[in-house]
């Protein structure tokens, strides 16, 4: 794939700017692709990006100027915004809330004091702590007004309090002002009026301060979620916009003509000019999911379990019937938020996770903390003293100690062995290999249970799913966490390590908008009520559609180019949690339409919870309308090569290595991943190595490489 060729036209660029490495993924007009890698440069991300691009394009023998001028699409994903939030390095933001409730943002929700904690720490009170609020109390002001849960005014807005608040915050030189009033999602009049007053005051001051009203961004119930998210727009998204602008300019200086888009939490890409940029707070891991979805669409897999193991975590996401599951009040960086996020569950267990024995119970504990890039005790220079999963890999022969990250880091098996003996094996009365294999088995079984519970939690069984395994450490454990689950197929892409960047390159241009609704109807409600409910929902869809089309218009797309997909959120009346349902009908008007929506909801509910948990006798509430609009973009072509011999070429063989599993040492055949060709079939024990990843095929498994450069793993 990666050879020089005359007249190659590069069309798509995908970027995954992670904390340590920046990956670029280029796709040409034939759909061929190449991956570039470089160290990340957090001070000026553009530098790392250009370096990574040069690396990737170099493999094609191309100069960056020649490639960039042709590119139509560039998609960015990265961790910069998330880091800005975690490190509290955002802008100075002023917050306007209801008078009397000025403390609520800094009080947070107490759940934020233990979000992301392991079980033991969740129940261990003295470990709980709050992070600094995004907006300090001294930059918070209150306006006198109250609206109730029905949207009825309890206390009319006292405009002078808004004006005073605005003036005070402006005088304090804030760099953005956020307004969030209770129940503004239901009745936005007061909040909009406050916004306009603040805008007037900003204008009068002669300063340039952006203003963010929660109702204009995330008009959904739960003030902590909504306020946090709106604050993120002012606090972190605006600086990110500047970063993206800088990157865009840097690329333009190198000859590009395209505008960058950013991978967003809802699974589509949006322009860096988009209004709701906070939803790009996580993007890298989303990229992998989108990549899997795209591969599935091309190759005909509709149910996919996406699994990604890196150094610190195991991320799982499900694609069912080619659709992503969206979570609407997720948490991120220990903040509860209200933005649509591709439902992705993370276990704090990756290749770098520490292994410890509880000193009192001798229970084996994996993570949640991790040695990260420092690998483990096996790297003498790392300073790590506690054994990690990677140490087990080295002890058991999974990893080549001389070819870690292409040989950049030399690993010392003896060191790992000694530490493992002292810290785990001896206290448990096991041999070192038994202990290391036991830990791997435990990790695999944790990950497997996790994968299984996620799938069964959606009401499915693994047999109807294809499992995709990627990420740097994914293919090391693929066999372990899929064994015995009975997946329809297990797939490891040959470009597993750059899969997220690939996903970015494959993502649609998609906007999604949500609106809170409050439609209530009894189970046996009369037809005219059902029809009226359909109409209310339709009005909301129409409003959202307009917003979606507006965003596309900014980027020069006409309405007829946009594919629209409505959705809704429904629950049994009185419940506090709803389910997101993709509408089975393109628009709603009649009682029959209503019945179709209800049926879709009841089906999903029984599957997600339990048939016995269905409660139609309570009646139904529609709590939200959703509109998604998509514009297709050129995507990487999945390679299609002729199948050749089942036997790998001699040149692909790299010798053998001792490999321990199930109580015995065996000789595993080593292969060079890039030298394998379509059709090759490899029976375990074997280890397939490349610079960025290692694919382990133990005894009892075999794998074959198909024409799309996908490895299929199966138990024999």
């Amino acid at each position, binding site marked *: 794939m990666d050879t020089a060729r005359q007249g190659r036209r590069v069309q798509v660029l995908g970027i995954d700017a992670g904390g340590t490495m920046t990956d670029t993924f280029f796709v040409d007009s034939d759909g061929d692709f190449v991956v570039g890698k470089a160290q990340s440069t957090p001070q000026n991300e553009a530098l790392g990006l250009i370096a990574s691009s040069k690396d990737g394009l170099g493999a094609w023998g191309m100069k960056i100027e020649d490639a960039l001028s042709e590119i139509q699409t560039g998609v960015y994903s990265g961790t910069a915004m998330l880091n800005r939030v975690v490190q509290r390095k955002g802008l100075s933001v002023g917050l306007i809330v*209801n008078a*009397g*409730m*000025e*403390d609520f943002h800094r*009080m947070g*929700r*107490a*759940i934020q*004091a233990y979000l992301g904690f392991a*079980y033991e*720490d*969740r*129940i*261990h*009170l*003295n*470990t*709980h*702590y*709050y992070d600094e609020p995004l907006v300090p*109390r*001294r930059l918070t002001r*209150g306006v*006198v007004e*109250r609206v109730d849960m*029905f949207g009825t005014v309890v*206390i*009319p807005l006292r405009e002078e309090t808004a004006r005073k608040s605005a003036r005070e915050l402006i005088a304090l030189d804030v760099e953005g002002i956020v307004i969030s009033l*209770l*129940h503004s999602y239901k009745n936005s009049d007061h909040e909009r009026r406050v916004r306009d007053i603040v805008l007037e005051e900003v204008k009068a001051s002669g300063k340039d301060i952006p203003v963010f009203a929660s109702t204009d961004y995330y008009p959904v*119930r739960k*003030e*902590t979620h909504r306020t946090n998210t709106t604050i993120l727009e002012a606090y972190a998204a605006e600086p990110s916009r500047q970063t993206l602008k800088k990157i865009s300019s840097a690329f333009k200086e190198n000859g590009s003509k395209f505008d960058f888009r950013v991978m967003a939490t809802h699974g589509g890409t949006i322009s860096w000019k988009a209004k709701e940029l906070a939803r790009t707070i996580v993007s890298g891991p989303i990229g992998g999911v989108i990549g899997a979805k795209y591969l599935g669409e091309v190759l005909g897999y509709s149910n996919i379990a996406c699994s990604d193991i890196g150094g610190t975590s195991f991320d799982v996401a499900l694609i069912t019937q080619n659709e992503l599951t969206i979570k609407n009040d997720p948490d991120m960086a220990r903040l509860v938020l209200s933005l649509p996020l591709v439902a992705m569950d993370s276990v704090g267990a990756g290749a770098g996770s520490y292994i410890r024995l*509880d000193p*009192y*119970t001798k*229970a*084996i*504990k994996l993570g949640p903390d991790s040695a990260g890039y420092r690998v483990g005790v096996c790297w003498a220079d790392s300073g790590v003293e506690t054994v990690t999963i990677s140490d087990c890999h080295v002890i058991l022969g999974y990893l080549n100690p001389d070819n870690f990250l292409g040989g950049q880091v030399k690993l010392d098996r003896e060191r790992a062995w000694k530490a493992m003996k002292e810290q785990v094996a001896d206290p*448990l009365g*096991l041999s070192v290999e038994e202990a290391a294999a036991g830990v791997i*088995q*435990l990790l695999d*079984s*944790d990950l497997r*249970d*996790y994968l299984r*519970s996620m799938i069964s*939690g959606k009401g499915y069984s693994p047999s109807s799913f294809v499992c995709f395994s990627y990420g740097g450490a994914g293919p090391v454990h693929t066999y372990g966490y899929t064994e015995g689950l009975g997946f329809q197929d297990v797939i490891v892409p040959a470009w597993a390590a750059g899969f997220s960047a690939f996903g970015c390159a494959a993502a649609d241009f998609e906007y999604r908008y949500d609106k809170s609704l409050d439609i209530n109807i009894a189970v046996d409600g009369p037809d005219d009520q059902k029809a009226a409910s359909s109409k209310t929902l339709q009005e909301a869809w129409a409003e959202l559609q307009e917003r979606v089309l507006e965003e596309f218009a900014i980027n020069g797309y006409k309405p007829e180019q946009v594919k629209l997909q409505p959705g809704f959120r429904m629950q*049994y*009346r*009185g*419940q*506090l949690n709803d389910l997101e349902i993709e509408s089975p009908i393109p628009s709603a008007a009649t009682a029959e339409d209503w019945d179709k929506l209800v049926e879709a909801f009841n089906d999903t509910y029984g599957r997600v*919870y*339990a048939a*016995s948990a269905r*409660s139609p006798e*309570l009646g139904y509430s529609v709590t939200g309308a959703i509109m998604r609009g998509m514009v297709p973009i050129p995507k990487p072509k999945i390679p299609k090569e002729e199948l050749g011999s089942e036997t790998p070429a001699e040149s692909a063989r790299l010798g053998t290595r001792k490999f321990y599993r199930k109580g015995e040492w065996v000789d595993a055949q080593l292969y060079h991943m890039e030298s394998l060709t379509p059709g090759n079939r490899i029976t375990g024990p074997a280890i397939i190595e490349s610079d960025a990843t290692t694919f382990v095929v133990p005894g009892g498994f075999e794998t074959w490489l198909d024409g799309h450069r996908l490895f299929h793993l199966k138990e024999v």
Partner: protein
Amino acid sequence: MNIQAKTKTRGIVRGGETLKQHRDRLMEATKKTKHYAGLTKMELRDSDPIKYNKLFSRLRAGVVDARETSKKIAASPIVEQEGELCFTLYNAAGDAILTSTGIIIHVGTMGAAIKYMIENDWESNPTIRDKDIFCNNDSLIGNVHPCDIHTIVPIFHEGELIGWVGGVTHVIDTGSVGPGSMSTGQIQRFGDGYSITCRKIGENDTLYRDWLHESQRMVRTTRYWMLDERTRVAGCHMIRKLVEEVIAEDGIENYWKFAYESVEHGRLGLQNRIKAMTIPGKYRQVGFVDVPYDHDDVRVPSDFAKVDTIMHAPSEITIRPDGTWRLDFEGSSRWGWHTYNAHQVSFTSGIWVMMTQSLIPSEMINDGAAYGTEFRLPKGTWMNPDDRRVAFSYSWHFLVSAWTALWRGLSRSYFGRGYLEEVNAGNANTSNWLQGGGFNQYDEIHAVNSFECAANGVGASAVADGISHAAAVWNPEGDMGDMEIWELAEPLVYLGRQIKASSGGAGRFRGGCGFESLRLVWNAKDWTMFFMGNGHISSDWGIMGGYPAASGYRFEAHDTNLKEIIAKGGEIPLGGDVDPEHPLWEALIPDARVKRDKQAITTEAMFKDYDLYLNTMSGGPGFGDPLDREPQSVADDVNGGYLLHRFAESVYGVALKKAADGLLGVDEAGTKSLRAKIRKERLAESVPTKEWMAKERQKILAKDAGVQVQQMFAASFKLGPRFEQDFRKFWDLPEDWKLLEADLPIPSYGREYTMDLSELPDVKTVQFVEE
């Protein structure tokens, strides 16, 4: 014939024992060997530690996941938002193997219900079959209070019982005399609401229709009730399925071994933690809280209940060098005619919850800890009542006040071992509880119980302040919830939510602060509300010179005229009642009828739209002398609204001055001299202990104490002869000095005549503690 007889005697437990035989055998072996179930060796764990860990990790993850998933079915914010639910997996004998997070006190209470079914032969009648569903909320057999409803499902494998799964939620109303889950007006359990004793409510995974009809009409809030039940049933079924899958994969033998070894493992885990974290010896401490019932706003049906009393809970922890320990509550006062009594199981399980938050926060938490702890609760005390009439609806009032003393005891030990981070000056008194009912904004019969006080201040440690508005002793995962969600559940709009200044106890490290919510009645009809908290006695004290947290109080305002004031654009009460000693709101509503006092317990009072109710949440106690606090931290506290300015000087001895940006800074010189002055004053005020004791002794001899105090000691003496002896010896009291309830000018019904549940025909109660 022979075969038939054999079939008849074959029990349902795996292997053929009856449940009773099974439990008896286990308990006998436990007693004999001091190891749970006689497991002096743990076969599975020792031979295959990896499999053992795998089983544990998979089951635990599944139980946690079932809780997270099923709670989304609920309509009640108490369950969905506050997480007041819990699922626990038991072995066949009803001992907990592992549990989810949440209200984990019920690890013990649901186990007690299972044991009650075992001891009273539910096996033969009403029978226990695969896919049966049982319900329990009976506080006389171990439940904390009637609003915690248990759903219990047996787990069978190939026709034999191999365990149980229990799910519990805190429901918002149980049909007691007054609305709300922890109502105050009743004084006997007959007024506590619907009481269900391990009743079979369904078979074949389906609930009986008679149960559905009856149970829904027994409570005010049917929708919450129904969806809470579906939450519990769905969660139990998810866990049952998980166990079936685990057995299919790892084999019944391994599961069976695991189900018992894990309990012994938990017991050893506790023992090892005690060894590692504490110092052997005796630790004594005490807790008090007020029951101010002799007040116009406490309307009870019986005159004999209309008295002011004090709960007394002295305790002695004995830690032995081998890591075993004993907790003795000799000297505790008698149960009373109120709703704050507790069953021995809820008392001991609750202590276990407290311990999981500091002593054993490991993943291996299960009934092993209960087997590793010896309790002595004298019969007849409030934590082990000897009368079947007692009410329980808010047993937490006494429980949290008694346990906070144990944090202090253990913390002294942690401190001694150098575990400074683990020191916790005590839990907050988790109140106020805003409760009430009537017709709500949807024109339905309704009851409310705001669970905002799941987020109180935390006690200080020996290295840092306690965190604010964050936790409750009964659920380590505290949360105050979003205001917009509470406004869906309650016809009350917020006019304030603010950190409560000075609610945390002062100290070198201060307790975390609580917060307060000002609520305006809105869209309510025929509405009532009441208060439930501590007003006269601060139950959580602080250690090593740290101050107690502030006690609660009540503020309610009626006929406020706020409608007109709002219409005219006048100033209205908003935010917090910053300094209750210098109130500002009354001036804004001059015509209102305001109740502002320390009467923090009331019964249903009528409220209408535009009335006000202040809900205050407690802070945690402090650690160390406030004069040792970093002065800048004091300035930061005042600037941040955690401390009232006047206490910076009077309590902390810190002089503040205006600094840049309008904030307050430390006046170094002023602080130095102020602190020196306070130290001098302390010395001037102090008297030698001997002198002080001589004076106090005279007061004791003259019985110069409030009637409440005298009643409290008299009741403690009667139930705790050793406590009385110690008291007499300590104060050197003459033989003829007697303190008897009969001599006091208040009624003491229940003093001589009581009748225990065990005296009912055909009832075998299960005893879990030494009495």
